[in-house]
């Protein structure tokens, strides 16, 4: 259905009247930390799909439930909002959907408004604004279990009278009171009367109204959970806070490296053997090569990141749902503010040391669009695990390992550490540059709500993993498949007598020769050039490529390849190559994921150009400076 029919629909027909008095589409609205998503998952029993609204990066879930007559009702889970002023992209999306202005999404027949019953005064302000839209609304006061436990109270009937809408006290975790949703669906009225609430225009007026309504409904705010106060005393402690933070950070890092890396290796082995198995079942020739080397290896190079991505999102999910992530942001904020970012950027940047792909996906927790963009743009400068094999190879070829401090810290380790520092410094410089120019954001101060601590639920963690996993495989997978096929074609054409050419006669070699004058100033010849081109697929691919070009198997003859590298590069050229890899965005997975997260090609193109330019200039400088001292 096109956008025009949709807007006609919403104008011509009164809401709620569409299907003879039953609701077809219901929007689920609520502030952040109201437990809206948990409730949504519970209601739809995980029968849902993810989608992006057109033209914005905001993602939404649509879930389905059945009413008493067995009719399917679509629930649209809108982003968490505090108000309905179109301040952020999230809020604009919420308003557009609620008012039927979102192309491709029908105007909702009704609204389910989820509020946190333990914090009613603040959340009633949103209620006033949503109810004023005139759409039939069901108000669900969530977290009833916490309200009761902490000796809070609210008279649901009085509140319903005050608001003029049905109100129910529910708990998304225990399922208490959720029958109210079915009652609401059953009582769909064809022509609801628009409600008029005695509310003054300003936020202060709304707030005073909220307090009055709360008082009339006998609302008693529950005491702050004792555990939240106790945990905060430790997690935000002057000394223990940063210590616990460091332990958590190391834990995240360890999980991805120590657990994720072996899993990735296992998956790699599995994919390699299946690739061989598939190849054995196909007649040898171009088609076999296309499937095994083009499709399977290309997609496989992306698939191997999956364990790390899922692990990272599991860890971040636990930290976020439990409430610790907000505290970590407070701890990290002071340091992050020095580069013009805030505490919310910390976890994504940390994750980027494992892999930029999940890191960029993790930036979704940053509300400020400009800060999120800056974080996305600097994340690939962090030394990811794909750079390690390249660094190890080149350093081993050129730098003899001599102990520097004791037997543990040798020259090679120091060189490796230096490359980590190099990437980090460039990230900081780039952040400063961005935050003082195109992504300057004076109007986005650090304001962060501290939710009470809660146990993460398995359902919401699991759902998040499925979501992120799918998003990564589907969206990034399509672009990566295309690039892999292009690279495969470039290495397999032009054909001679129906056979693929030797690498030095292929299209990719011709391109390598063509760009040789351009990379000569960095101390690279055409072979390295070919390696740079193929490494766009993934950084470590350069090793296999150089192996092929020199006729050595990089797996079994790594010392031979090191010798070949020494023959090919001067020490200065080797340094230039390392510097180039530290800065360049040689990773199509990252490019694909940036495209997806920013919803367009503009930012990935800018980022790729910028990083390549930085890499080129820095490698050029390194080649000339080092070349001056080392012959």
């Amino acid at each position: 259905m096109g956008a025009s029919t949709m807007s006609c629909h919403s104008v011509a027909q009164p809401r709620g009247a569409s299907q003879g008095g039953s609701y077809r589409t219901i929007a689920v609205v609520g502030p952040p930390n109201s437990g809206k998503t948990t409730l949504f998952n519970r209601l739809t029993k995980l029968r849902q799909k993810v989608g992006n609204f057109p033209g914005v990066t905001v993602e939404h879930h649509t879930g389905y439930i059945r009413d008493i007559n067995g009719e399917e009702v679509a629930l649209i889970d809108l982003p968490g909002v505090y108000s309905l002023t179109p301040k952020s992209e999230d809020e604009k999306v919420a308003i557009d959907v609620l008012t039927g202005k979102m192309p491709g999404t029908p105007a909702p027949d009704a609204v389910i408004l989820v509020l946190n019953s333990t914090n009613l005064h603040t959340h009633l302000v949103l209620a006033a604004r949503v109810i004023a839209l005139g759409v039939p609304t069901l108000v669900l006061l969530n977290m009833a279990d916490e309200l009761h436990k902490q000796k809070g109270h609210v008279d649901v009937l009085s509140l319903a009278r005050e608001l003029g809408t049905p109100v129910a006290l529910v708990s998304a975790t225990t399922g208490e009171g959720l029958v109210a949703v079915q009652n609401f669906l059953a009582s769909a009225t064809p022509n609801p009367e628009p409600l008029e609430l005695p509310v003054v225009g300003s936020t202060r007026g709304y707030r005073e109204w909220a307090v009055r309504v709360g008082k009339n409904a006998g609302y008693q705010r529950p005491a702050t959970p004792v555990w939240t106060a106790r945990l905060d005393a430790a997690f935000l402690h002057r000394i223990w806070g940063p210590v616990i933070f460091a332990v958590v950070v190391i834990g995240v890092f360890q999980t991805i490296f120590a657990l994720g890396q072996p899993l990735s290796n296992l998956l790699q082995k599995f994919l390699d053997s299946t690739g061989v198995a598939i190849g054995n079942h196909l007649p040898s020739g171009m088609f076999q090569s296309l499937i095994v080397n083009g499709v399977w290896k290309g997609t496989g190079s992306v698939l191997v990141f999956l364990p790390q991505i899922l692990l990272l999102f599991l860890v971040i999910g636990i930290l976020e749902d439990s409430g610790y992530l907000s505290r970590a942001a407070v701890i990290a904020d002071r340091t992050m503010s020095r580069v013009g970012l805030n505490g919310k950027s910390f976890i994504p940047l940390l994750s980027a040391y494992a892999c930029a792909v999940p890191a960029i996906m993790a930036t979704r927790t940053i509300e400020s669009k400009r800060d999120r963009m800056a974080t996305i743009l600097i994340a690939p400068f962090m030394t990811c695990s794909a750079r390690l094999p390249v660094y190890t190879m080149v350093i081993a070829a050129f730098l003899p390992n001599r102990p520097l401090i004791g037997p543990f810290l040798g020259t090679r380790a120091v060189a490796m550490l230096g490359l980590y520092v190099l990437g980090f410094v460039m990230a900081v410089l780039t952040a400063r540059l961005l935050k003082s120019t195109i992504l300057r954001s004076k109007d986005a101060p650090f304001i962060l709500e501290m939710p009470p601590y809660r146990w993460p639920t398995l359902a919401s963690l699991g759902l998040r993993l499925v979501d992120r996993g799918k998003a990564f495989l589907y969206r990034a997978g399509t672009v990566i498949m295309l690039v892999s096929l292009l690279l495969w074609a470039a290495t397999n054409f032009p054909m001679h007598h129906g056979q693929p050419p030797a690498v030095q006669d292929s299209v990719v070699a011709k391109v390598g020769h063509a760009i040789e004058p351009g990379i000569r100033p960095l101390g690279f010849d055409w072979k390295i050039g070919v390696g740079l081109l193929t490494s766009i697929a993934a950084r470590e691919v350069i090793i296999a490529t150089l192996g092929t070009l020199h006729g050595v198997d990089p797996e079994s003859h790594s010392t031979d390849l090191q010798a070949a590298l020494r023959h090919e590069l001067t020490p200065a050229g080797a340094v230039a190559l390392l510097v180039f890899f530290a800065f360049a965005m040689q990773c199509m997975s990252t490019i694909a994921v940036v495209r997806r997260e920013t919803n367009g090609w503009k930012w990935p193109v800018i980022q790729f150009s910028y990083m390549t330019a930085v890499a080129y200039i820095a490698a050029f400088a390194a080649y000339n400076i080092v070349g001056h001292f080392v012959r």
Partner: protein
Amino acid sequence: MIFNFIFGRHKKDLETRAQALADLDVGESAILSDLEVSPPIAEHLMNLGFVPGLVVKVLRSGPGGDPRVYRVDGTEVAMRRDLSRHIHVELIGAAAFGD
């Protein structure tokens, strides 16, 4: 220059003390009077509960004293001093609503 910048704040006399949220000590409460920030930020703060007339308490301080966590009407919010300096408060004594 830099010394004035660092130490100047502590030299404020008692009369001007506790006029801004940033000047309150941890554990102290006051009544919000005025948000001297741009309209969208004021709006966001009010949506979180920072409405003039409500009681705000400095709950705790992050390491190094910045950002700090405040509580208004059951909501806990962290913000930096560069913002809390522009939020004006009155010391308890006047009537407050909502808490």
